[in-house]
């Protein structure tokens, strides 16, 4: 991948963040979802919430990266704006790299908000900051790529949401973030 391809991928990610991800409904959903989940666990078991935080962070990345990524690509295919990207002088790898990058940044941002909230309000501690950051990035990458794969197999946005949320129902995400 040469420099103009990397630049192109970066601009695609930037455009996605601006056009889709960093919209008030998405951000509020990304923040509200883990909070609602945390509250549900707190009501059930007020003493064990700290142990659940890694899993909740994983869930926030899963939903932020996978669902959003799959929905964005399916939406762009429907509106034919994805065709516009394919017409650009970029390889398909660069276009997908740009798309995945957008999902990674969004997933990382949402999980960071949740992480900061849990440190500030629930007095959680981070034993290895570098390892945690790396785990978050790797998880965001994995889920974003998964979202891209989902988008290949579906035509409708609702199908993308169903498929992207499938791993959640099997607790697939919970192992991905080691308890930091």
């Amino acid at each position, binding site marked *: 991948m040469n420099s103009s391809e990397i630049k*192109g991928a970066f601009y695609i990610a930037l455009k996605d963040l601006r056009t889709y991800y960093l919209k008030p409904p998405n951000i509020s959903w990304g923040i509200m979802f883990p909070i609602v989940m945390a509250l549900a666990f707190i009501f059930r078991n007020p003493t064990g919430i700290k142990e659940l935080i890694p899993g909740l962070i994983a869930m926030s990345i899963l939903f932020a990266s996978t669902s959003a990524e799959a929905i964005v690509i399916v939406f762009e295919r429907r509106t034919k704006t994805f065709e*516009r990207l394919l017409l650009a*002088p970029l390889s398909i790898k660069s276009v997908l790299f740009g798309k995945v990058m957008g999902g990674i940044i969004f997933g990382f941002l949402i999980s960071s908000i949740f992480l900061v909230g849990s440190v500030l309000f629930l007095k959680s501690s981070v034993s290895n900051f570098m390892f945690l950051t790396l785990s978050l990035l790797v998880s965001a990458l994995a889920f974003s790529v998964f979202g891209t794969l989902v988008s290949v197999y579906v035509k409708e946005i609702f199908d993308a949401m169903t498929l992207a949320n499938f791993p959640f129902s099997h607790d697939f995400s919970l192992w991905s973030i080691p308890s930091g």
Partner: protein
Amino acid sequence: MDTKQKNENIIEVSDLTKYYGNFLAVNKINFQVKKGEIFGFLGPNGAGKTTTIKMLTGLAKPSYGNARINKKDIIKQTVEVKKIIGVVTEDSNLYEELTVADNLRFMGQLYDVSKSERENRIKELLNILGIENKKDVKFAKLSKGMKRKVTIAAALVHNPLILFLDEPTTGLDVLSARVLRTMIKELNKKGATIFLTTHYIEEAEQLCDTVAIIVDGKIKIVDTPKNLKLKTKSKSLEEAFINLTELKEEVMLVEKGEKINNE
């Protein structure tokens, strides 16, 4: 552009074929487009016009055959080919959430146009198209005709050598279509080669230097509109088109039916 350059082939298509499953959409077509001309690619609906454009612009891989654009292979040098072409697809497919200027900016970024050049070009294009006052309006808020103009501007940000226009005036009102046709002529005068698909025959007659007629995935004829009329002994290109596409019997039946109804 001098005569020598004008006689150079900028697009050379040889045996280009496309299958979708068992369906043969484009069947071993051959034609050349000269530098600086407006080339009309005509045919009835489903004849293979869009599939041909998709193959030439790198959106679909040919099943067989090849083409060269400005001496570059469309299969082996797809990215290089994409750098020198601008494409306006059938749909005005820009980002609804972005403003006109931001859409054009994004297109310039994708084509790696430097910031200063990009801004100058955007200003110039908005000026040519007469839509400077719309630059901060979201694409979603524009009328159909305006969206079409912006889509054309987006295809021109990187100053392409060849502009592919797929049914550019479909669905536009008479005035917008006329403005677009004038714009196409102006772009051509400035040196751009234009590859145009349309099913409006009058449009092709007004604009094109050369016309190719495709029916059921096969090229029937490639010639100037004048020669086509002479060869088919037709008064208009529309009549020539009907004769060449073997639609004559259908047209006669419709006319006969109308006659019966009138009686």
